[in-house]
């Protein structure tokens, strides 16, 4: 048995029975990174020495009976979460040399529970993208098929977990950035309810949409990670004071009597046949397990992309105004005037996709266009939110694809930004509505690429999604299935 192939729950069991040490586990993942990283490019930085030191600390603590709920578990974090005294690049030249002065709350929580942060992983620049190809420091590769995208923006999170380089990862999801790469790489990914997990120390992209979420090898590990990272934080003013309970509690409770909506607008034109078959199979699994399946309508689904691609860039253009070369980040040293310094710094520091979104956002917020674009999109957001309210009066959760297709070849989406935005159609609305969304592996396409099934539920009902996903996982037998990576 290679320790890196274990889930968190299995590892904790072995650790407790003294059949394994944290040192073994971390060493096994580091070796796996060494072996696979030239292919996968998941990591922007690996903390080899520190991780081994931390593993030893956790082994000592365990001997003294002081271990936390994730003691000695190697976890990667997306490179937009601050971990004190380490680089946080956001996948951008702009922050290439930025050293975090403090810990993100979620990083603090992981370390308090004994987790070992093994490194920081690749992502689309400032989390803007659906393929991780806009990362300035190497593009991660899909562990299931060489030369294919991981999805994004949390692509490094997904490839590091699917590739056996760590047991779990933290990503962030502003429009699908945890769920879509989880789907495309065959792991579990959860975007919690807006306000469920603290964003303190998460570099902001679109503040009314951003949420931190875990990527794991199975559903139980997802619940374990949520137990650690969820909860109110006074340092995040959008964090909500609500009981978090134990996310593992309802996993095995069964789905009998639960009402599952199948929104017909998610199954239209453009949906890949294999993907549809896999999702329909997921519906059948839940029905066989005793859930009541019903046809529902979310009539404004087709407006989500348009609303999202005004709101998210508008917020991004405002959030990214801080990168002016003065206090931190890249600075062009050749400019004579302050205005030229700003412009040259930003033009050289940001990549094309980030510039494109800053331009759209600035335009949508500019005088004369604000009402027609930003305000209109925010009103449509109300309409989309109402679709969710109505549908959750009829059912407990909805089931759908995460994305219209499985992973595609790298380089194919390079010069058509709108086509790429449209591929986000099924994942954006959860962020607009603030509801939780989960991707659980559902099967493989004829080409051998993994496909996830998306479950969405009412605010703060991650427990329902975890329970449904657990049932699907039990039936498909796809928990913790790792790809063979040709050396």
């Amino acid at each position, binding site marked *: 048995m290679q320790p890196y192939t274990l889930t968190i729950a299995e590892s904790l069991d072995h650790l407790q029975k003294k059949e394994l040490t944290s040192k073994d586990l971390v060493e096994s993942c580091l070796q796996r990174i060494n072996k696979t990283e030239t292919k996968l490019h998941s990591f922007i930085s690996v903390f080899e020495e520190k991780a081994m030191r931390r593993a030893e600390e956790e082994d000592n603590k365990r001997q003294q009976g002081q271990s936390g709920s994730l003691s000695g578990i190697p976890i990667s974090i997306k490179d937009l979460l601050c971990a004190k005294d380490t680089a946080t690049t956001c996948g951008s030249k702009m922050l290439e*040399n*930025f*050293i975090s*002065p*403090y810990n993100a709350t979620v990083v603090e929580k992981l370390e308090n529970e004994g987790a070992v942060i093994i490194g920081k992983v690749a992502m689309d620049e400032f989390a803007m993208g659906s393929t991780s190809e806009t990362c300035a420091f190497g593009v991660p590769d899909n562990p299931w098929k060489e030369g294919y995208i991981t999805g994004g923006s949390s692509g490094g999170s997904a490839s590091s977990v699917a590739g056996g380089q760590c047991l779990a990862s933290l990503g962030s999801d502003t429009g699908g950035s945890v769920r879509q790469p989880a789907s495309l790489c065959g792991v579990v990914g959860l975007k919690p309810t807006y*306000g469920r997990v603290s964003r303190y120390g998460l570099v902001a992209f679109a503040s*009314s949409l951003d949420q931190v979420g875990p990527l794991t090898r199975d559903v139980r590990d997802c619940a374990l990670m949520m137990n650690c990272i969820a909860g109110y934080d*006074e340092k995040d*003013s*959008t964090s*909500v004071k609500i009981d978090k309970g134990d996310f593992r509690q309802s996993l095995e409770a069964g789905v009998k009597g639960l009402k599952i909506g199948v929104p017909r607008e998610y199954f239209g034109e453009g949906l890949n046949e294999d993907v549809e078959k896999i999702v329909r199979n997921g519906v059948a699994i839940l029905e066989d397990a005793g859930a009541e399946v019903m046809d529902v309508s979310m009539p*404004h689904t*087709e*407006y989500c*992309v*348009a*609303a999202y*691609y*005004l709101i998210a860039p508008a917020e991004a*253009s405002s959030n990214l*105004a801080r990168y*002016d*070369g*003065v*206090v*931190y*980040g*890249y*600075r062009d*040293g050749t*400019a004579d*005037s*302050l205005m*030229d*310094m700003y*412009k*040259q710094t*930003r*033009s050289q520091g940001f990549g094309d996709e980030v*510039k*494109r979104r800053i*331009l*759209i956002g*600035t*335009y949508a917020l500019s005088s004369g266009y604000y009402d027609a674009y930003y*305000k*209109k*999109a*925010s*009103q*449509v*957001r*109300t*309409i989309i939110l109402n679709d969710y309210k109505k549908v959750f009066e009829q059912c407990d959760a909805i089931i759908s694809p995460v994305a219209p297709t499985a992973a595609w070849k790298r380089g194919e989406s390079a010069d058509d*930004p*709108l086509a790429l935005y449209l591929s986000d159609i099924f994942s954006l609305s959860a962020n607009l*509505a*603030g*509801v939780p969304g989960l991707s659980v592996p559902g099967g493989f396409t004829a080409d051998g690429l993994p496909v996830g099934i998306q479950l969405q539920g009412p*605010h703060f009902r991650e427990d329902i999604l975890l329970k449904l996903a657990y049932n699907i996982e039990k039936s498909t037998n796809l928990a913790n299935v790792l790809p063979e990576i040709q050396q």
Partner: protein
Amino acid sequence: MKISRQEVEHVAHLARLNLSEDDLVKMTGQLDEILNYVAKLEELDTTDIEPTTHAFSVKNAYRDDIAQESLTQEESLRNCAVRNNEAFIVPRIL
């Protein structure tokens, strides 16, 4: 055309970005395509609909006004590209 080259130049200035001639042409085309697509929202009647800025209403969160630990001067200056011992340095303004 939803957006002209001149408008893209103006927006780039507002966003403090320089665009090369090639970028300006490419961005104008792409922005125009995106704005044409988002015009889809005009199909919906939104009269009297309140805009949503957050999925649920968030109130201002205040803490008590008590001095707490913060970054030291050195920690604050650590990530600055051009600095001296006590300040961030920028090109002359006046």
